[in-house]
């Protein structure tokens, strides 16, 4: 007999410029594991953040056990038994596990004896299959262990509804299996789990029902028995047709190899290999698009190319020059432009003006800055790319996100003479500007023989811009296709395999 545990009714959430959730309704029954699937930006995280009280909905209602609730803070959520675990652990490194847990649990107070907490923590860790002494300092733990501690903390908070936002994404297979076994037992006691994941097979394996979101709307909810990987993939990505490219791009591809990567291994932030044995090459005037879900190793691959992340094994050559583990300044001086994954953190200094951000790049100025020349360059970029700014001497933190992106793209595209390395090059741009940027990239490739390697979560963009499509999954290149031979189905299948 199915009892409604959480009911979300017609929830709408707007952010400046976007409609994150558009009248979303879905139901979680008591004792079920409910998977939320969808492309990036589909609204999954927004939805669980609303349930956890981080955001409040603009419209719509949330019911728990049939009672209407207004959740305004995580504290409220916890009081109603809802706990969120995300993909980044939030533990304090210098403290022990027990100390961390005492800090976050409200039913412990200043006078609680650590020994009592110790035994409670110990038994929860035990039930998760973790043989760690709760008095261990957190910095000694691996990422996986930290993540399990986060889940243990949620259980100690007496979670009745566990929200896992990509919490399992980076867990190794064996740990994941253990956790899934635990979750199955956990829901049998009348609790529920909402699981967000990118991995389709994972969702199909563990969940009882799957709800798919696309562009802020619920596409549908399917029972696992009736679900099938192709049906769900279609629900996630839609059957958007991509228009065949009018310009014959192929003709511009030369014979020389601009970027050559062989057997590359690169570690990620957490010390795990994020790029595994990647071999790729980009010819002169070729655009290589890397399709893959977020976190498949694209960022680490690009940072390694740019000399920003250490190459553990393998070789990178740019135009025949070995650039493996070379200084970024040197790699840049070969004529390599770069659009990083987090433009505001890594691409631009938002406290400084547009002119200053341009002058910072070695190509635009020598040691002594010729402000006159910089101003001319800046004015030209503003004109050509339609950057909306009060003046080139305004701190760019006052610019909108789209204009910041335009500024970064214009600077880097001008900078690149041989190779452009770009992560999500049109993120945050409106349709018109995005098209213009793609056209600029293609023009530069056709006229000047620029080679491009880019990654995008948007398959339409991958198909529109690339000559060659490589699919990256869990750090490996799992398929390389000529654009005209690639099919969307096959690429999607490899992405979520």
């Amino acid at each position, binding site marked *: 007999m199915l009892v409604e545990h959480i009911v979300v009714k017609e929830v709408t959430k707007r952010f400046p410029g976007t409609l994150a959730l558009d009248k979303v309704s879905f139901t979680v029954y008591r004792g079920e594991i409910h998977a939320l699937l969808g492309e990036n930006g589909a609204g999954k995280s927004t939805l669980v953040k609303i349930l956890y009280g981080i955001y409040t909905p603009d419209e719509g209602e949330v019911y728990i056990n049939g009672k209407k609730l207004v959740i305004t803070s995580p504290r409220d959520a916890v009081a109603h038994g809802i706990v969120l675990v995300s993909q980044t652990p939030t533990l304090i490194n210098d403290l022990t596990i027990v100390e961390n847990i005492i800090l976050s649990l409200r039913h412990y107070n200043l006078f609680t004896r650590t020994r009592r907490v110790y035994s409670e923590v110990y038994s929860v860790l035990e039930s998760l299959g973790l043989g760690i002494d709760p008095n261990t300092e957190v910095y000694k733990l691996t990422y996986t262990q930290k993540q399990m501690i986060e889940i243990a903390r949620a259980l100690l908070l007496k979670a009745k509804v566990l929200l896992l936002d990509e919490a399992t994404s980076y867990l190794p297979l064996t740990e994941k299996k253990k956790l899934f076994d635990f979750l199955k037992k956990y829901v049998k006691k009348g609790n529920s789990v909402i699981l967000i994941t990118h991995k389709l097979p994972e969702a199909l394996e563990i969940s009882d029902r799957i709800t798919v979101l696309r562009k802020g709307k619920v596409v549908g909810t399917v029972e696992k028995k009736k679900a099938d990987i192709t049906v769900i993939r279609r629900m996630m990505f839609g059957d958007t047709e991509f228009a065949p490219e009018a310009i014959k791009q192929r003709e511009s591809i030369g014979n020389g190899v601009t970027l050559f990567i062989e057997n590359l291994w690169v570690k990620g932030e957490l010390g795990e290999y994020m790029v595994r044995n990647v071999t790729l090459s980009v010819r002169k005037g070729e655009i290589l698009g890397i399709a893959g879900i977020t976190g498949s190793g694209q960022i680490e691959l690009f940072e390694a190319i740019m000399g920003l992340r250490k190459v553990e094994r393998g070789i990178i050559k740019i135009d025949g020059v070995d650039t493996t583990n070379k200084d970024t300044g*040197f790699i*840049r001086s070969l004529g390599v432009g770069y659009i990083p994954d987090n433009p505001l953190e890594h691409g631009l200094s938002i406290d400084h003006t547009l002119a*200053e951000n341009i002058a*910072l790049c070695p190509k635009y100025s020598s040691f002594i800055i010729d402000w006159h020349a910089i101003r001319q360059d800046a004015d030209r970029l503003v004109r050509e790319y339609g950057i909306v700014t009060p003046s080139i001497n305004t701190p760019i933190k006052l610019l909108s996100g789209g204009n910041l992106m335009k500024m970064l793209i214009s600077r880097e595209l001008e900078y690149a003479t041989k190779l452009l390395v770009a992560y999500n090059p049109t993120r945050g741009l409106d349709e018109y500007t995005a098209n213009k940027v793609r056209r600029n990239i293609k023009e530069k490739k056709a006229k000047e023989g620029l080679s491009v390697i880019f990654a995008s979560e948007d398959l339409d963009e991958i198909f529109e811009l690339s000559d060659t499509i490589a699919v990256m999954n869990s750090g490996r290149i799992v398929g390389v296709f000529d654009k005209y031979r690639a099919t969307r189905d096959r690429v999607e299948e490899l992405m979520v395999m």
Partner: protein
Amino acid sequence: MASISLVVVKRVKPLPSWVAPLLSFTLGIAVATVLLWIVTLGRTDPIVVLASIGRALAMPQLLLKNFALLTIVGIGLLVSFKASVFNIGGEGQFYFAIIAATWIALFSGVGAIAIINKVLMLVVGVLLAGFWALIAALPRGFLGIDEVPVTLLMNYIAYYIVDYLVFNPWREPKYKYPRTPTIPEESWFIRIPGTTGTIELILLTVVVMAGIWYLMNNTRLGLAINVMGSNPNVLRVVGINPSLIVVSSLVISGMIVGIAGVSYLAGEAHLITIPAEACTPMLGYTGILVAWLSMLRIAYVPVAAYIVSALINAGINIQIAGAGKASVVDVFIGTILLIYSISVIFTEYSVKIIVKR
């Protein structure tokens, strides 16, 4: 049950940047005056103290020396602060410049040769001060070792090196006082009559201000130092090595402070007296206050330096008036810096008291 909670809220628009320095000066002087009055059980007359400060402010000719030296040190420290590198080692760099200049003046054989002796004192002094800063800069830049304790403790190493040199090889031979012989008069800076300043010092102050202004506004190094302070990631991505920027900012900072050291020796002290840790004019520390109060803007450094040097002179006035020792100004300087550090937070944040029932 009612519960009261304090909530810190970020201001939509930060307060104007001059609010914090102005508030800290007025409030700092007021608080310190009251504080002195209380701890001395009413023996320091607040009126005498305030009058001393007022008189000091109105006599620029008497504070010219400290004003110029503090401007140079303040500008020097500002270069490192801009990069979020906190050079607390001004004292050590100051004394290393003095060691070099003293050697040139007394023992190199050029001390009595006009024109080149002053230039050599400056050049070698600046280089040695820069070297002293480099020792802290390399581990900070390449290993990320916190520069604050390193530069701070290196001040004491510098003091003790000075003490050793002056107590042993450089000791004045005639009466064996714990000090060096006086440097030859040819190497003295030329006093401006009726003031405490020297011609060379004023020139150097102008050159330092103009030079650092140019560096910070018209060179890629200056821009990179600025960007280093707000977002070092960007430097890496555009291909500038942040480690080198950190090292450069700290070394330049030390070199500029070194100019003040040489000027102090050639314009004022003319010899080194030990123990250095007790005889120091403390400009390396006071300069930190000047740099902070200027809100890290080059044009405001002289303003802050003027007020702080007036406070130093006020201390002398207070001593003459018999209301306390000259070192009471340390209370003023400390209180001002403390209030500034606190109030600067509230230009960006406000505190709200919320009573829940």
